[in-house]
């Protein structure tokens, strides 16, 4: 039995784990071959202990907060630990088990082995632009069962002690539309796990098993304590919210939650949510767990490093078979839209209870466009798939952020216009803020964006993955609702056709427009500082009419001075 470990050693080891996570992240981004990985950074990396508990997760998409540890536990359940060797690489993308999300998100895991003993796993989950299936880009708005959404990889050993299983690799190559890109991303993922495994093994060799075990236990205990300490700051109680989920190819369905906050528990009960639908707008239980964890982390402590312990107080309750807990073979390729709405629901329930931490509702969709086609003079297929930024809700003391990705996309980026134009048959004709008078409030909701793509080339097909195309983001404490999002085709003759949750052929010369919504406002707009309203008018964010009608402030159109305040304001300030 060792004497109690030196607290400084424990911190040094903890810092080393965090540094390894960051290194994995950078390596993946720099070697990947698809824009969704190297520009958007739609992936996540992490390290688990030998039992599959998360030790650290690098930056990346919050969508994957509940996924990496479950993947390792799936592997451990299928392959006896005694048979797992150095150089093994596991691959899985089954959405219903093992931390799966949708088939496009492929998880790679590699064991760290010291002295013949497995000491942990490095994992990398990334969005592949192509995993086959009925439509180019694999995610669709029209699938009715999982088999149309791509190739399924149900927890396989891809490398055996460093030797690739060429048969599996051949099957993957043969089933995806862009084999070089998918194989390139696979290599980037494996490279990052290989680096992490080496670093983790060095740590174990350097500090020894006993100290490492103590350090890992310390990290988990510490993050659980951080969560509980922050949870004690929230007012205990039951908080409820309900909303409608906009589903592909059907009428909106009911979603609801009851959040019970106590001093050491954060229980989210989604009972009452509509059964799964026969279109890809469902998510699996993993997605629901991640959705809840995102909000919890944001509420309790958004900045500290996370481990499995961070989420100790969180419990998710929901019967099987709802739109949040879909089961085989229900399609789930648009799971992230459903996940974002689940997060928004939990957030809505607790927002007004924690005004110093939560804002009004945000645009709550990726407002993603998926466009594929070929150049006029080439048979080569290109596929653009990109999430878009939108408007965030205002909060006490602050206007909402403009043009920021939604809550579940974490640290992802927009694809630069220059990259789009050089890689795809598209011309970016407009990239602007989506300005309107919606989202009004004492603090204003932030604006979304407008992005116009002029189509060039042939065989071009476009679709939009859009929630909140019907119901805008919610305002809070008397603030107004935001605006809705859309993806639409503007035909050469000027007619506008919605592509939100549907797919259509587009012709060279047409424009595909992405229009993301504003976030909700916070507080009564009649309480907004008149000078701030005048500045909004001067900067083009609020119209003269809006200033007068909504904010009760008459602004001079020439010098933007405040001319007159409506008597309606008097009663409120």
């Amino acid at each position: 039995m060792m004497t109690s470990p030196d607290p400084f050693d424990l911190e040094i080891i903890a810092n080393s784990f965090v540094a390894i996570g960051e290194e994995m992240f950078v390596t993946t981004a720099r070697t990947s071959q698809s824009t969704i990985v190297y520009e958007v950074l739609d992936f996540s990396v992490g390290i688990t202990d030998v039992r599959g508990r998360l030790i650290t997760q690098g930056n990346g998409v919050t969508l994957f907060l509940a996924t990496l540890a479950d993947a390792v536990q799936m592997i451990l359940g299928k392959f006896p630990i005694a048979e797992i060797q150095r150089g093994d690489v596991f691959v899985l993308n089954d959405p219903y088990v093992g931390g799966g999300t949708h088939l496009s998100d492929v998880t790679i895991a590699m064991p760290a082995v010291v002295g013949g003993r497995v000491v942990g796993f490095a994992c990398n989950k990334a969005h592949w632009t192509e995993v086959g299936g009925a439509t180019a880009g694999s995610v669709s708005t029209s699938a009715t069962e999982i088999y149309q959404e791509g190739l399924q990889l149900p927890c396989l050993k891809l490398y055996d002690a460093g030797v690739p299983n060429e048969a599996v690799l051949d099957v993957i190559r043969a089933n995806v539309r862009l084999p070089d890109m998918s194989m390139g991303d696979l290599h980037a993922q494996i490279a990052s796990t290989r680096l992490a495994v080496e670093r983790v093994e060095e740590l174990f060799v350097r500090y020894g098993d006993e100290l490492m075990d103590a350090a890992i236990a310390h990290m988990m205990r510490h993050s659980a304590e951080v969560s509980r300490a922050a949870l004690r700051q929230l007012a205990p109680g039951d908080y409820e919210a309900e909303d409608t989920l906009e589903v592909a190819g059907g009428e909106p369905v009911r979603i609801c939650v009851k959040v019970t906050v106590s001093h050491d528990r954060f229980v989210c009960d989604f009972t009452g949510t509509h059964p799964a639908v026969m279109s890809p707008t469902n998510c699996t239980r993993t997605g629901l767990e991640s959705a809840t964890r995102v909000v919890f982390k944001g509420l309790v402590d958004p900045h500290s490093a996370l481990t499995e312990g961070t989420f100790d107080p969180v419990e998710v309750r929901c019967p099987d078979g709802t739109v949040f807990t879909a089961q085989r073979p229900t399609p789930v390729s648009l799971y992230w839209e459903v996940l974002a709405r689940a997060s928004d629901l939990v957030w809505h329930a607790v927002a007004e209870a924690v005004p110093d931490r939560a804002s009004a509702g945000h645009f709550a969709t990726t407002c993603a466009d998926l466009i594929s086609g070929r150049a006029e003079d080439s048979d080569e297929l290109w596929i653009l798939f990109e999430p878009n930024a939108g408007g965030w809700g205002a909060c006490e003391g602050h206007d909402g952020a403009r043009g920021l990705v939604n809550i579940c996309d974490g640290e992802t980026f927009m694809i630069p216009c220059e990259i789009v134009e050089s890689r795809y048959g598209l011309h970016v004709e407009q990239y602007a803020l989506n300005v309107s008078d919606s989202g009004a409030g004492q603090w204003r909701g932030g604006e979304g964006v407008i992005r116009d793509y002029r189509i060039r080339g042939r065989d071009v097909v476009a679709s939009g993955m859009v929630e909140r195309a019907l119901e805008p983001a919610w305002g809070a404490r008397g603030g107004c609702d935001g605006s809705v999002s859309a993806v639409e085709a503007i035909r050469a003759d000027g007619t506008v056709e919605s592509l939100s949750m549907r797919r259509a052929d587009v012709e060279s010369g047409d424009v595909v427009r992405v229009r993301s919504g504003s976030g909700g406002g916070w507080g009564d707009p009649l309480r907004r500082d008149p000078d701030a309203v005048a500045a909004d008018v001067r900067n083009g964010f609020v119209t003269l009419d809006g200033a007068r009608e909504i904010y009760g402030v008459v602004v001079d159109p020439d010098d933007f001075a405040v001319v007159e305040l409506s008597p309606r304001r008097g009663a409120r300030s």
Partner: protein
Amino acid sequence: MLNAYVQPVVARYMQGLDAKLAERGIDDGIYVMQSSGGSMTIEQSRVLPINMVESGPVAGVTGAAVTGEAIGRSNLITLDIGGTTAKTSLIKAGQVEVTTDYYIERTPTSSGYPIKVPVVDIVEIGAGGGSIAWLDEAGGLSVGPRSAGAEPGPACYGKGGTEPTVTDANLVVGRIDPDYFLGGQMEVSRELAEQAVARVGDRLGLTVEQAALGIIRLANANMVNAIKLVSVRRGHDPRDFDLVAMGGGGSMHAGALAAELRIPRVIVPRATSVFSAWGMLMTDLRADWVRTKVADAAAIREEELNHLFGELEARAAEYFHGEGLNGNGVVLTRSADMRYQGQEHTVTVHLPAAAGSDRSAVLEAFHAAHEQLYTFRLDTGVEIVNLRLTGLGVLHKPELRKLETTDADASAALKGRRRVHFDSEGAQEASIYQRELLGAAVEVPGPAIIEETGSTTVIAPSQRVVVDDFGNLILTMVNGTAR
């Protein structure tokens, strides 16, 4: 856009500076340090001020390369420790690593702005003398990135700081002499340092000395991670490099970091605390030209490459001619940004003077560089993305002066003894020396401390220092074999 943003302010400032200097009769040979490790004229700096980003620390890296060249050491890792940060960079075979992937204002909560100009590749972390050691609510321990700065500064300054900093910890364990802080020009209090460190020690149930050693160890571990970022993580073995210590705190921590990373040798240059200022004097006029050309690296014809580089070379000749430099005084180097087809990010590969002379060697250089950085190579085709031309115009520089050899040994510089704690090697009586009095070839065995105005070199019991001909302190392990 960022250049345009800063240009009006900088242009006005540089113009004013130029005029004021001219009034004092200084109107020739004024150059401005650039992020790329070279210098530029004042006129150029008014056009492209963005090229000055981070140029201060960069000068230290240039200085290290020059020092290394003078003493025949070409593989170097620099370590620059100031009040709030530690910065490190790697020099391989005399070549300073330059990146065009630099972001300003990038933090964990801000995506920052890419500036795409050549910047010497420096990794910076929030660990310096003023970095604060603190415990969070749940008892988690950290050093930095929060810093006490100069006001109130470390607790020992007595200006109202009560939180323990790395400097306080160094004072508590005897590595800093409270009576010779900044050469004795500033008064610091050991009692205040001990009180501050005890705040952390008490909560952890440790003595003041244990807590101080822990704080130093944690700060060192952060610095080790930074040095690993520029070395191990880019495929370089630290054992093949010398560590060049600079900044006020560099020489205090360098010995311990070298031991940890098994770096065989530490170089502490003269005037180490203001070394980057000296480095600026040692730079050449530098300018960079880039031409984007996306092409299949194996297929593009040699004539086309030569033609494109020829255009850049003509622009370079014109530029240097305008600065009064021609022919032998100008060195042009070609390189190309390359990647595997389908990738976005590139790896920069140096090209021979005549492009295409041996294409397979260039391709192999790319594959090797990619594998070194990222552990794998692919069979996929290779693309050229940008052609780069770097021009160096050789400027007149001060000559490195050698120390006069004396017969005196170290005892001439001995100023006393005190108890210093060396962590795993325990607390020992260390000899204290005054650096300025140490002559060439003098040897100082550990445990010892060498003090000079502005910095302190710590020599552990298992280490020793030899003063070289140029006055650099060369620190090695007594039992180690320097390569």
